[in-house]
């Protein structure tokens, strides 16, 4: 059988563990991508969200074998982009981060939304982030920050 390998934040990596292992655990323990959080382990909170071939997935619900040869992007990779800068600025300006546990997942959900719909209205933003739980902010600051990032980062998405 072929070896298990995928492209993590632009670099090819090999995985020596089991194909049934959770991508979440592989990312944190094997590749030290600790932006990926385990909030629930059941697909309910979005704290473990990553992009797989550009599509938002909860990495606690993904086995490593399912990403064979795929592009996996975590916040560690995403933070190198101009789009991240726009979101980062808006989140800071509008105090959309408190404890920060949900933030990596929220940012990747925002990226997935904006890459599909660069000028979302509030309802679309709320729908796009509906799989990401935040225990701190009450969501309004997050929604406003995504809206502002879309406006100020106009042309990036």
């Amino acid at each position, binding site marked *: *059988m*072929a*070896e*298990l390998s995928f492209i993590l934040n632009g670099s090819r990596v090999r995985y*020596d*563990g*089991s*194909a*049934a*292992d*959770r991508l979440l655990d592989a990312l944190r323990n094997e590749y030290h991508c600790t932006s990926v959080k385990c909030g629930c*382990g*059941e*697909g*309910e909170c*979005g704290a473990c*969200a990553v992009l797989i071939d550009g*599509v*938002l*997935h*909860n990495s*606690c*619900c*993904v*086995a490593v*074998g*399912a990403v*064979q040869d795929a592009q996996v992007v975590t916040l560690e990779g995403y933070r190198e982009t101009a789009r991240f800068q726009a979101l980062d600025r808006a989140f800071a300006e509008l105090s959309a981060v408190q404890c920060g546990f949900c933030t990596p997942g929220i940012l990747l*959900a925002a990226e*997935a*939304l904006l890459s599909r719909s660069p000028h979302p209205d509030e309802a679309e933003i709320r*729908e*796009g982030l*509906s*799989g*990401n739980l935040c225990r701190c902010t009450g969501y309004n600051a997050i929604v406003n920050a995504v809206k502002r990032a879309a406006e100020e980062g106009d042309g990036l998405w």
Partner: protein
Amino acid sequence: MVNGYVPASLQEALEIRAGQDVIPYAGGTDLMVKRRPDAQYLFIGRLPELRQITEDENYIHIGAAVTFTEALADPRVPALMKAAVSRIGAPAIRNAGTFGGNVGNASAKADSVPVEVAADAKLRLISLRGERVVEIESFYHGHGTHDLGPDELIAEILLPRTGLDHWYYEKVGGRSALAISRISFASVFDMQEDRITKAAAAFGAVSDTVLRFRDLEAMLIGRSVAEAKDMKPAYLRAYDERLQLTEGRVSAQYRKRVCLNLLEDSLRTFGI
């Protein structure tokens, strides 16, 4: 690779399925929550043969590994099916979750299944031995069990292309996103020359399998809308007697009340 198979083609997948003790893995959203680190998965989620939506004269064929997000973006998928799958989970779950996985999980809470039952959908099952097409209703045997051979895969879901224009769908969950159905309800209605030709009602998440009662539906078949209106009290009473629902997180009594309300509301939208 340790513990698992990533086939390059459907043919290869079927060979592995026939020769090894493997668990088909499509989107993983049901399987991974069950946490079986020793499982031997057959990763079929990215096989192009299972990811297509096609049409023939009579049916829309939705590949088993088509995700809910992909179906929502496809103009050929009927509005009734879109109404149901748009309410599944949240974006990341709809991006991963597939039609085959929803059926394969054999849960009466699977939200695409009441639609398939009400629409008289079929499943195409394949193995190295060949293929067979089964009615969705006859596929289920009870909670968590279905008629899938150990060497078979679900290849596609066949939805009729016509007769799905008059529909009703409602899902009752605890909240708007990430809510597992407490009750889901789909119905399809059709008429020809002022006579009712179809009045299908399917109830999800209230029993071991999705419920549909063709003998009760027969009370309305062949009737005019005016006659159906006269039949309505008897029709609703018959469902009241027949709906034997399981207790879950919500009481059987609550479930029955909601089922009957939804049935009545659906009749109303069809003018009955």
